[in-house]
């Protein structure tokens, strides 16, 4: 094992996960490639969504990959930061909306 859990060089080895389970790995990468093709959403829009999700799931590999990919697809800094704010708003909102549950319970157990 490395001394750290995350090594930037490991990103390039992502494809190696197919070595131990080729069938599932190949299916995953084929699906992955299909998802990011231009469709109802442009490649740039998909890349910005991926960048936002990368922050929400806090994946350093994905942040590395989709920062570059967003630039390559023609996104600018403002769009990239706004995408991250969308992720932050949803994560913050998801925390706060549970406040309603807390308030429900509060009402239930208090006079």
């Amino acid at each position, binding site marked *: 094992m490395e001394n750290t859990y995350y090594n930037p060089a490991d990103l*390039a080895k992502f494809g190696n996960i197919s070595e131990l389970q080729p069938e599932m790995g190949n299916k995953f990468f084929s699906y992955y490639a299909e998802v990011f093709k231009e469709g109802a959403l*442009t490649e*740039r829009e998909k890349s910005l969504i991926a960048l936002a999700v990368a922050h929400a799931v806090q994946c350093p590999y994905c942040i590395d990959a989709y920062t*570059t990919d967003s630039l*390559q*697809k*023609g996104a*600018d*800094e*403002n769009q990239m930061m706004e995408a991250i704010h969308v992720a932050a708003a949803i994560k913050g909102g998801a925390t706060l909306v549970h406040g309603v549950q807390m308030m429900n319970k509060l009402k239930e157990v208090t006079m």
Partner: protein
Amino acid sequence: MKSLKAQEVPLADTGFQLNVLNSTFSEQKQFPKFRDKLAAHNLYPLKPTGIQIFQVNLGKMCNQVCRHCHVDAGPDRKEIMTRETMLECLEALAQTDIPVVDITGGAPEMNPDFRWFVEEVSRLGRKVMVRCNLTIILANPKYHDLPVFFKLHQVQVVSSLPYFSATRTNAQRGEGVFEKSVKALQMLNAVGYGKEGSELILDLVFNPSGAFLPGGQAGLEKEFKRRLKLGFDIDFNNLFVITNLPISRFLDYLIESRNYETYMDKLVTAFNPAAAENVMCRNTISVGWDGFLYDCDFNQMLELKVNSQAGNHIRDFDLTSLNNREVVLNQHCYGCTAGAGSSCGGETVA
């Protein structure tokens, strides 16, 4: 900002650049030789397919000092083509039926014989392309009528605009360049360039403002068109997507920002044999400001002269010999074969 040459730094020397590219320094990571990659796909030696583009570099003088410039151009560069050399270019052209003359620099418009040369090339019945940096049109009142001059000679204008917003453009090309470029594009549109139904062609060139490869040309063109129309009411015809080659000032940037090895890795990993088949050096000849011949503008900046039996100067121009030459290759060539390929006309793979 001064050119590398004016700063007298080691990278201003093309031999030093080639040493870096060939990993001759002990601490450098080794990359596979470009010629071996081609050989593995039966493309070595690389042979021309016939010259269709006669590219003339009128000099290194420029009003801008862009951070990525492969020419190391700028106001402090005084090397420009003389009228005598231009005459030799015209004589060479007249012996052939090469259809396109692509004029570049520096800012080619700063050469005092620029307009005369465009007129003479037009007189030969060849299509003229000018690689205009846009800001030159506003740099001095004597250039304000360039859009009208271009229109008069039906010049195809090809202009660099690395982004549709000021931050990224100015970071690469200098403070205020975006605003002036927008104004110049509006002036070109005003005389009919890039407008629907017009025969006056205005193409833009996108190259990444950093250590990453460009994305797909079609998607970027769509976004550039949408954003430039929406923000500035600008129209243009095509967007050419160009990969930055690791030479001169861009190489300097890569080394300074510690991105050199990662960037070379990206280029080597993205090697695409289909792109390699269509590289521009197969249908282009490039003439330097001093009349020497090269396979492309990048080889010109690395002083890698053409390997033609008849000689390597414009006065030795011999179409048969040039069509039978072997293209001179080096490690920077990975830049033209990565992904969808890169050339002065954008991607090389449909």
